[in-house]
């Protein structure tokens, strides 16, 4: 770090970092300068001029905006002179002329209630007391700090603009806007969406959208970043709009593995009313997504399970915990270990998952335990032979400095939303984005020409192999790294002979030049990262994908390098943690294989029970085993499981077949329907515990709401069940106790404790209480494990289609399609997207089906196990890259509307991903006159 700069602010000598602005230096040293448009973590803008200060530098005295002026050596800054104060009062006067300010300039502002008689005759609708942002309004705080002359406020000009209350999730009332442009800037420079913009000029300039359209059309992803930064009541969350927070607590969002640090506001009636991204959050940098911001209030909803229930004569009856546990223990004892399975919740904390794993092994004697959303374990476990760790190698925000990001078969913008933010930032800064996906996703628009590779579905791994071959052909490998740090180069060199580019091009349908272009983009970048998911990858190929990705990163030296690395994309807030702590059928805590004799023996000793040596069933195998009757009893921690989640389709029917089912959930739902015993569970806002996110960061959840009934956190319920079954080692008092036991068993967690996590998350491996965690795996040569390249094999096209459903549908979803018209329809005061989609067909397919461009066609998907099909109707466009591939691109706004309207108490897990589907294609004959 460069030498600090010495300067004087208000007579106080301080040190600042070069590049800091005056306002930042002043804040760091505890001097308050009023501001409205400045916002930490955004570029200085200088719109409001509230932060003017007097500066003296090189003998010149000037009045400057402190948010845009960098500190200089020996600068003298005066922030509170009479002149400056006078200037600021004039500025705030002007800022307020179009904002209702009768109350802002009134001495009774702290005393007034909504119904009071107003001596100033301020209109009821103009009063601060009825503003949804009252008491958290930055404008109000700033005005109060100015000590204005209250006797003579300027005249107020009411703009009488229409209020926008018909878009999902948040309201916009530009009558309250002071045009600080924070919302426009956060949308553009932090989120890269530009769904909002400044319209018109000078005195009439205002925040708006193109042609004043709804947010659904303007490309809004409903992340709520604009709402979080708005200093006035112009942008407000619609739910709990006027509710006041009583307490607020920093916790971790429970929707996806990014692990966003979120400030939860709780009101006096014990409801979580608002969620704001925490600017101090290491994993999210203050950002949230539509799920975390607007769909996390489910713990408030009515109809929760409050007491344990037991099924007596096919009716669920309220009972006590003791009786419920006794009944469960008795029933579970009737089954042999092989007949029992535990499904852990994707929202389960490390503590829940550890106790669940221990319960399975110690009390039930089985390895049949898996996390519900651990649907693609190959993505992480496949890395074990290559990098030695079943996790992402680097950290989320390193991605913003990557010079190339390759995204394979994943849609992070929706599934791991905040992870896409640094990727988009890298793209904006000129990094190459390579997307390997048949679907059009939000990230494909960031690809430069030719870097969106759309292989035939089922050939992605072969394509990655082809890229690896091209990297070697063009000598783009990092020779020093490969020679000194990596094993296995000869093995894969031999294997790569079969990845002849002509053959790869033939199999994948991607031209050789394009493969080479992708290889050059990835291989020649200073730092290049790979994000890979399994959305479009066939089951047989998932392990190979992990190997291929690891090989590509190793050969180019992108392991152990900042801005490089590989990131598996999976679902579930704590899927990483559940695997780390052993809620996994193949691994005991700390990725010790259950077949590892000595490790198993040692853990058996510590746990005081014999651990079974056979690998258990994975989540998908469990569902199948339940359906065919091999598994007869199950414990399901159901919080956050959507039974219609792709990959879990058969779960509901399978649970119906069980002889005994114990469900721990917070709401009645499809899964608890068949339960024999129901244990009420505490939601993520009501517990203490830890999640581990996809960058291996262990973070602390803090309890914000109190538990007033008999709900219990998962670990407490499972530990009580363990005790009821007579097992020992389940005597835990707090989540911290459980975590202490985890730290004593899992080496990579050894240095972590709840106390340490109070001051921020820690990335494992963290060997002892002095270590600060590991941001980049293999950053230093790792003594314990030497990375190894592992051969993978080339495959011909694997085909899932059949004669009745001969096409593969690649369903994409984007924020907006600039060159296609979108229609928005207003129904019952809310906006909805209604538009005819385009179905992209290959000309050959179209001509053999007798379809010409612009005709209406219908797609029908192959029925799933329950016989459900999905249909799409749209206009044919003849521009698919491959015969047999049909693509449809829908708009993200439809998801937002659907979530807003959902009656489900917890709608976020139900947002459908975008799996590939086998479909049939028919032409729709439209009666004359209808079209």
């Amino acid at each position: 770090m460069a030498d600090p700069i010495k300067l004087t602010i208000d007579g106080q000598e301080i040190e600042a970092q070069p590049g800091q602005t005056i306002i930042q230096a002043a804040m760091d040293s505890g001097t308050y300068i009023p501001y409205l448009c400045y916002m930490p973590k955004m570029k200085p803008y200088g719109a409001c001029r509230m932060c003017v200060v007097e500066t003296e530098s090189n003998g010149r005295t000037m009045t400057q905006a402190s948010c845009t002026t960098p500190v200089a050596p020996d600068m003298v800054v005066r922030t509170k002179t009479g002149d400056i104060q006078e200037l600021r009062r004039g500025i705030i006067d002007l800022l307020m002329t179009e904002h209702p300010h009768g109350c802002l300039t009134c001495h009774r502002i702290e005393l007034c209630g909504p119904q009071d008689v107003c001596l100033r005759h301020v209109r009821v609708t103009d009063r601060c007391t009825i503003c949804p942002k009252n008491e958290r309004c930055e404008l109000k705080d700033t005005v109060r700090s100015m000590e204005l002359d209250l006797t003579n406020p300027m005249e107020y000009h009411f703009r009488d603009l229409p209020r926008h209350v018909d878009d999902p999730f948040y309201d916009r009332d530009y009558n309250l806007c002071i045009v600080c442009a924070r919302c426009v800037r956060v949308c553009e420079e932090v989120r890269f969406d530009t769904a909002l913009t400044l319209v018109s000029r000078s005195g009439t300039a205002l925040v708006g959208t193109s042609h004043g359209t709804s947010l659904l059309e303007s490309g809004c992803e409903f992340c709520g970043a604009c709402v979080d930064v708005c200093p006035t009541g112009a942008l407000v969350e619609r739910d709990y709009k006027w509710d006041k927070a009583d307490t607020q607590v920093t916790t971790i969002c429970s929707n996806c593995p990014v692990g966003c640090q979120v400030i939860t506001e709780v009101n006096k009636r014990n409801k979580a009313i608002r969620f704001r991204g925490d600017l101090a959050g290491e994993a999210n940098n203050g950002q949230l997504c539509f799920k975390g911001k607007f769909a996390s209030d489910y713990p408030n909803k009515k109809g929760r399970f409050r007491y344990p229930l037991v099924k007596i004569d096919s009716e669920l009856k309220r009972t006590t915990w003791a009786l419920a546990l006794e009944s469960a223990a008795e029933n579970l004892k009737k089954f042999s270990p092989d007949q029992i399975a535990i499904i852990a919740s994707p929202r389960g904390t490390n503590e829940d998952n550890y106790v669940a794993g221990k319960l399975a092994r110690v009390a039930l004697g089985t390895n049949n335990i898996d996390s519900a959303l651990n649907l693609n374990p190959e993505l992480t476990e496949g890395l074990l032979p290559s990098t030695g760790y079943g996790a992402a190698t680097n950290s989320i925000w390193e991605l913003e400095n990557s010079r190339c990001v390759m995204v394979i078969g994943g849609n992070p913008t929706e599934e791991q939303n905040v992870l896409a933010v640094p990727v988009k930032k890298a793209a904006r800064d000129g990094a190459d984005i390579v997307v390997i996906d048949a679907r059009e996703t939000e990230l494909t628009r960031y690809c430069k020409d030719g870097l969106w590779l759309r292989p035939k579905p089922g050939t992605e791994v072969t394509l990655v192999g082809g890229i690896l071959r091209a990297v070697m052909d063009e000598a783009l490998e990092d020779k020093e790294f490969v020679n000194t740090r990596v094993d296995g180069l000869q093995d894969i060199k031999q294997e790569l002979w079969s990845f002849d580019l002509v053959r790869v091009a033939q199999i994948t349908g991607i031209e050789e030049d394009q493969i080479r272009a992708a290889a050059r983009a990835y291989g020649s970048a200073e730092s290049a990262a790979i994000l890979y998911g399994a959305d479009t990858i066939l089951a047989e190929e998932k392990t190979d994908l992990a190997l291929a990705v690891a090989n590509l990163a190793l050969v180019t030296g992108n392991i152990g390098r900042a801005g490089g690395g590989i990131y598996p994309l999976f679902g579930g807030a704590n899927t990483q943690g559940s695997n780390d702590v052993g809620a996994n059928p193949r691994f005991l805590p700390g990725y010790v294989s259950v077949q590892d004799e000595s490790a198993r023996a040692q853990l058996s000793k510590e746990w005081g029970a014999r651990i079974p040596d056979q690998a258990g069933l994975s989540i998908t195998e469990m569902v199948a085993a339940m359906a065919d009757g091999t598994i007869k009893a199950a414990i399901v921690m159901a919080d956050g499981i959507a039974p219609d989640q792709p990959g879990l389709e058969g779960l509901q029917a399978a649970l119906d077949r069980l002889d005994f089912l114990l469900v721990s959930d917070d709401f009645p739902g499809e899964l608890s329907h068949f339960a024999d015993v129901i244990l009420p569970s505490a939601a993520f806002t009501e517990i203490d515990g830890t999640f581990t996110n996809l960058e291996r960061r262990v973070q602390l959840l803090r309890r914000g709401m109190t538990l007033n009934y008999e709900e219990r956190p998962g670990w407490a319920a499972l530990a009580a069940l363990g005790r009821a079954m007579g097992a020992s080692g389940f005597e835990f008092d707090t989540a911290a106790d459980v975590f202490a036991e985890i730290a004593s068993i899992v080496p990579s967690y050894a240095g972590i404790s709840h106390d340490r996590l109070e001051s921020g998350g820690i990335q494992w491996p963290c060997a002892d209480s002095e270590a600060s965690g590991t941001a980049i795996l293999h950053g230093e040569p790792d003594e314990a494990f030497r990375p190894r390249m592992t051969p993978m094999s080339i495959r011909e096209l694997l085909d899932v289609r059949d004669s009745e459903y001969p096409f593969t549908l690649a369903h994409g979803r984007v924020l907006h399609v600039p060159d296609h018209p979108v229609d928005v329809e207003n129904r019952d005061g809310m906006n909805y997207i209604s538009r005819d989609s385009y179905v992209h067909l290959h000309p050959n397919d179209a001509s053999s089906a007798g379809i010409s461009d612009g005709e209406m066609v219908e797609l029908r998907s192959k029925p799933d196990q329950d016989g459900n099909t999905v249909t799409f109707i749209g206009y044919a466009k003849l521009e698919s890259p491959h015969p047999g591939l049909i693509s449809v691109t829908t708009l993200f706004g439809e998801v937002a509307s659907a979530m807003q309207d959902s009656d489900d108490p917890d709608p976020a897990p139900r947002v459908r991903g975008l799996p590939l589907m086998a479909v049939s294609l028919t032409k729709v004959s439209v009666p004359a006159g209808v079209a």
Partner: protein
Amino acid sequence: MASEAPESADDLRVQIQALLKGQSQPTVTVLSSLLAIQDDLHYLPNEAIEETASFSNTTINEVWSVASFYTNFRFTPPGDHTYEVCWGPSCHVKGAQQILKCVQEELGIDREGETEDGKVTLKYGTCLGACAQAPVIAIDHHHKGRITMEIAVRLARELKS
């Protein structure tokens, strides 16, 4: 928009795309693109904003913020003829306000803009640069000087019919 005949909307897009690609200057910007379209179509339809966004790899909102900044861009089709009344200082002294008032009366509008039938666009001119001839009007960019109220109304009536 789906209700519009798709062919004409597509034709318009094709025309706009051709205009965007046909820009010959070395630096092509959002602004130059919008100007190129308005020079040809005389206004910026919705499609122009969308196509420009696509062409310059940005979003419709960013294009809109540029387009809405400049008063010279218009977003509705202009009338068949323009009728520009100068209200610069010289013309003002020579009675431009009265001329403007009776022209507006004749055209049946009370501000700048198009007549109901879309035949005439009335514009205010800040100075048409022919002060010696004040008061001045311009019809379809052809100046006419030393205008009286009678002539102004007659010309407006001729355009209307």
